[in-house]
């Protein structure tokens, strides 16, 4: 809560807050910035009281520095690796999806992004005792299809597994942001969740060509995602689209160029960006790492995966 109110500190009584608001000291930030002498005059508190309130506010609202070693220990203690269950991909990602990271899977249309997502969900709900949350922006998630993919399990296990998938259909960017904040609140109330999937971010972003506001909302989405990822040790997987453009006309035919949608701003958000593409001749798919903060890309940079009815292998 950044606005000053009587519930923040006992010295900030309603009268004091009213006086401060009257002089346009609205928020905690304003209070800390304004000169102490001036606040003494406005709020009719003594010097020591103002200092005490300022120190209290600074302590409560500022970010706290953490010792590097403690931070490292904390990360080691809380990070989990979620295996994708696809052998080649797990090798590529050093074991699977690391919590605290945002992964992006981008690819041309109909290249197997949603199929990859379904495979990942299937393997996680079968092998881990965790819920999976999926944001579906264009009704691509089919529960019947999921059930078919689980056809090798017995009835009991299938029902239990399907109950672990939480589907959230978001058609607008506002829906998505509100839902992410709702998840944050639930996580603070001890909900257990390790993996959140956003199937198709362009589905809520490309409906406007005002790039300025698009970036604003992408920023909001990135902020809350990063917060959830690091504070609550959750892994994110976002799918994104690659569009192919040809420059020039028929006579001046030039090479085609590829663009990853959602703009340059978004490209810096995911910690690891993966690319999926269909192989023309073999019928399989290739998954490669385009950019990564954490992976050593020189060791291995691509994996071949085979699509089957029950998911990728």
């Amino acid at each position: 809560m950044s606005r000053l109110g009587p519930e923040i500190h006992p010295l900030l009584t309603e009268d004091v807050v009213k006086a401060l608001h009257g002089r346009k000291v609205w928020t905690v930030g304003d209070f800390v910035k304004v000169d102490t002498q001036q606040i003494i005059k406005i709020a009719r508190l003594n010097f020591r009281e103002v200092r005490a309130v300022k120190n209290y506010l600074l302590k409560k609202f500022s970010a706290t520095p953490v010792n590097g070693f403690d931070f490292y220990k904390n990360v080691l203690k809380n990070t989990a690796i979620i295996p994708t269950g696809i052998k080649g991909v797990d090798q590529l990602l050093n074991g699977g999806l690391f919590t605290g990271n945002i992964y992006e899977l981008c690819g041309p249309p109909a290249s197997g992004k949603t199929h990859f997502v379904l495979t990942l969900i299937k393997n996680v709900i079968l092998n881990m005792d965790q819920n999976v949350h999926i944001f579906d922006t264009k009704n691509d998630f089919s529960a019947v299809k999921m059930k078919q993919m689980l056809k090798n399990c017995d009835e009991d296990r299938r029902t239990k597994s399907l109950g672990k998938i939480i589907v959230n259909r978001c058609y607008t960017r506002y829906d998505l942001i509100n839902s992410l904040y709702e998840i944050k609140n639930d996580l603070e109330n001890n909900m257990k969740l390790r993996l959140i999937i956003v199937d198709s971010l362009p589905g809520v972003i490309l409906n406007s060509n005002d790039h300025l506001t698009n970036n604003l909302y992408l920023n909001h989405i990135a902020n809350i995602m990063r917060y959830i990822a690091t504070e609550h040790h959750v892994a994110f997987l976002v799918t994104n689209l690659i569009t192919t453009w040809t420059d020039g006309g028929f006579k001046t035919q030039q090479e085609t160029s590829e663009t990853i949608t959602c703009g340059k701003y978004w490209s810096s958000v995911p910690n690891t960006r993966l690319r999926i593409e269909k192989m023309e001749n073999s019928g399989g798919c290739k998954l490669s790492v385009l950019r990564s903060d954490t992976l050593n890309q020189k060791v291995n940079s691509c994996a071949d995966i085979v699509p089957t009815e029950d998911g990728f292998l």
Partner: protein
Amino acid sequence: MNQPISSLNLPDSIIGKLANLGFNYCNDLGENVAQRANIPDYGSLKRAPKRCTALELCESESNWKPVTSFIPQLDCLLSKEIASGVVTELCGLPGTGRTQICLHLAVGVAGETVFIHTNNNLSVERLKEIAEKFVPDVGALMQKLLCIEATNFTELRATVQFLKTWLSNNQIRLLIVDSIAWPLKQQPLMERPHLIYRLFQELRILANLHNFAIVVTNDLTTRNTGATSSSFGDSFYHIVNNRILLSRVNNRFCAKTLKSANKNSEVFFKFE
């Protein structure tokens, strides 16, 4: 971390006014302040859409009654693809049976179809002919079929707005837009992608609410590389859930899935 007010669906003027008065986060903004700032329905602004488990979803999906076109071979393919909330695109060259399939579907899902035609393609005579073959009471069917002519993009969007109110009193299972290409081609090139996304966003919200499927038809075009593909590029390809390519050799028609949640398949069929 608190939700900033600027992430809500509010006009910039209101957000700016609130920021000037020190309201930056939703937590600070109570119901009474929202009312004074002329924000209607503040509660629903912050509301997240309902979640459900895949188990519940599975149940409602199983209740979906598959559509039929009265062409058995084609039904094998279509009944798997056309589902509630899903956008299916039929693309093909002229004369490959796009409109014919739409007419067949309109007869097959009798009384629960909205047919939006954009390029004067709807032939009532042909519709009647198909209906006479398969349905006992043609008059009743024709009376219940809602046909809307929308020849440009503005009309198309207005139609969607009209459907919003119309659907609260009527139940449909299928919405057909015969040729999405025609109204879109009238729009400037750079504006097309976001117009498409916005249109489908509105249609999907409606489809999810009222439980119906969407079928659109599209043209083929030649890309610079020489390959033929469906019009409107990759972003359009992304926003549709399924794409079925139609082709024709002599009197034999062929439907092939290019994009689908199921395994890609191909069927051959004939119109009666």
